[in-house]
C-alpha cells in the first residue's frame, strides 16, 4: 500500500498543482536561453583552441639538445590498443639510448593518455592538435619526423601535467 506515497519534498503546493504558473516560469527560462549567448563554434571558419587539459594527438617532445625520449618502451607496453612501436638504439649523448624508430598508428590510438602518464622522461605528451585527417592507412602511421614537436609549443600541456600530477608522493609525516 505504501508504495507510491509522495515524499514531503514531492508534495506540490496549490500553485504548482495549477501547472500554468510553472509553465510560464519555464517559458521565461527558455526565453532567456533563446536570446542569450550561444555555445556553437562555427568550425571551419572559427577554430576551437583548447587549453592544456585537452588530450589531442600524442607527440614527442623536442628539447634544444634533441628529443627527450630514451626508448624505454613503457609507452608501447602500456598502450591499450598497441598503437606505439619503439625500437631503441645507442647514442653518445648522456642519456645513452634513443629511439631509432618511433611510430604511432593513429588509426589505433584512442587518446587515453596512458603513454604520457607512464613516461618517466616527460617525453611523450598529448598535444592540442585535433585536426587529424589521413588519406590512406600508410599515412596514418606517424613516424618520428611527424611526432617531434618543439617543447615551446607544448608548454600549456606540460604546465597542466605538473599542476595535476596523477601520482602524488605521500605526504611526509611532520615531526611534532
Amino acid at each position, binding site marked *: 500500500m505504501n508504495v507510491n506515497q509522495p515524499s514531503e519534498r514531492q508534495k506540490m503546493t496549490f500553485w504548482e498543482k495549477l501547472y*500554468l504558473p510553472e*509553465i510560464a516560469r*519555464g*517559458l521565461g*527560462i*527558455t*526565453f532567456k*536561453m*533563446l*536570446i*542569450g*549567448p*550561444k*555555445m*556553437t563554434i*562555427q568550425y571551419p571558419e572559427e577554430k576551437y583552441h583548447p587549453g592544456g587539459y585537452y588530450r589531442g594527438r600524442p607527440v614527442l617532445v623536442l628539447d634544444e639538445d634533441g628529443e627527450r625520449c630514451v626508448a624505454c618502451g613503457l609507452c608501447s607496453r602500456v598502450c591499450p590498443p598497441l598503437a606505439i612501436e619503439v625500437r631503441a638504439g645507442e647514442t653518445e649523448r648522456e642519456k645513452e639510448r634513443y629511439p631509432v624508430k618511433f611510430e604511432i598508428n593513429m588509426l589505433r590510438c584512442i587518446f587515453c593518455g596512458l603513454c604520457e602518464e607512464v613516461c618517466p622522461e616527460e617525453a611523450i605528451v598529448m598535444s592540442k592538435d585535433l585536426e587529424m585527417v589521413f588519406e590512406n592507412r600508410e599515412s596514418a602511421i606517424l613516424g618520428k619526423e611527424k611526432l617531434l614537436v618543439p617543447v615551446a609549443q607544448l608548454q600549456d600541456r606540460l604546465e597542466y601535467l605538473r599542476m595535476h600530477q596523477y601520482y602524488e608522493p605521500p605526504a611526509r609525516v611532520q615531526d611534532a
Partner: protein
Amino acid sequence: MELLVDFLIGFLKALIVLFLVILPGASGAVYFERRIAAWIQMRIGPNRVGPYGLLQPIADVIKLIFKEDIIPAAADKRFHFLAPLISITITVAVFAVIPFGHYVVINGEPVYLGVAPNVHVGILYVLAMTSMGVYGLTLAGWASNNKYSLLGGLRSSAQMISYELAMGLSIVALLMVTGTPNLMEIVEQQAGLRWNVLYQPLGFLIFLVASFAETNRTPFDLPEAEPELVGGYHTEYTGMKFGMFFLAEYGNVIAASAMMTTLFFGGWQVPFLPELLGLQEGSVALALLQIASFTIKVAIFVFFFIWVRWTVPRFRYDQLMRLGWKVLFPLSLANVLITGLVMLIN
C-alpha cells in the same frame, strides 16, 4: 455565367491561399522551429543553405522527394497511400474559411479576402475539419501494419475525442457572446480592441490547450512519442509521404494559430491606425494593413507553439486523459454556465 465567374474567383483565391500562405507558411514554420529549437538549446541552428539558412526547407523538400518510397509488404496499400493525402487535404481545407482581411472593392463590388470567409457555419466547418484530421493519422497507423504505428494512431484518435469536447464547449461559450458562427462577422464585431479574449479569457485558455492537443504538438504529441513508439503513426512512411504528414502538422499549427487569432484576438482588425491614417474601408492599402496585422498575430501564435514545444516535456498518457476529462471538460462546462449567467443578468 455568374456562377462560373464566382467559381473562378474562388478557385483563384484558393490557389493564392495554397501557394502564398500554406506552403511558404509551413516551410517557414519548419525553418523557425529548427532555428528556435537551436536558440533555446544555446545552438545556432541551420545557417548554411542560403542566407541565414533560409533555403534549408527547400533543401529538405528536395531530399524528401528523392528518397525511396517504402511501403511495408504487409501494409494495406490503398490506405497507406490515402492517409497522408487525407491529412494534408483536411489541413488545407481549414484555410478556406479563415478571413485574412476584410474586403477590397473591385469594379464597385466587394471582394472578400479569404477563399470563403462569409460561410455562415464557419466555426462548425472548422470543427468538422479538425476532427476529420484524425482519420489521416489513425488510418496511417492502421494501414502500416506496425504495432507502433497502430498505437500512435489509437492514441491520436483517443486524444482528439477527449480534447474536441473541451474545444467545442469553449467555442460554445464564445458563440454565446458573438451570436454568430460566421468568422467574418466575428472579426467585424471585434473592432477597436474589443477582442473576444477580454470577454472569454478562460475560454481562450481552454481553446489554447485543446488546440495544442488537436495539432499533436508537445506537450501532447503522444501519437508520435519517439521514446516509446519509434516514430508513432508515421513510422512506416518515407519520402514525400512523410513530408506530407510533416507539412500537415505545420499547416495545422498555422491553422490553429489563425483560428485563435480570428476567434479571440481580433483577426485582421488593426486598432486605431486606419482612423489615424484616414484609410478608406475597402481600399487596397487598408487591406494590406489588415493582412499584415493578421500575419503578425498568427506568427506570434506560431512562435508560441514552437516556444512551448521546447519548454514543456511530453505528458504521460494517463496524465493527458486526466487533464482532458477531469480538468478541461468541467472547466469548459463551467465557462459556458458562467457566460450564460452573466448574459442573463445583463
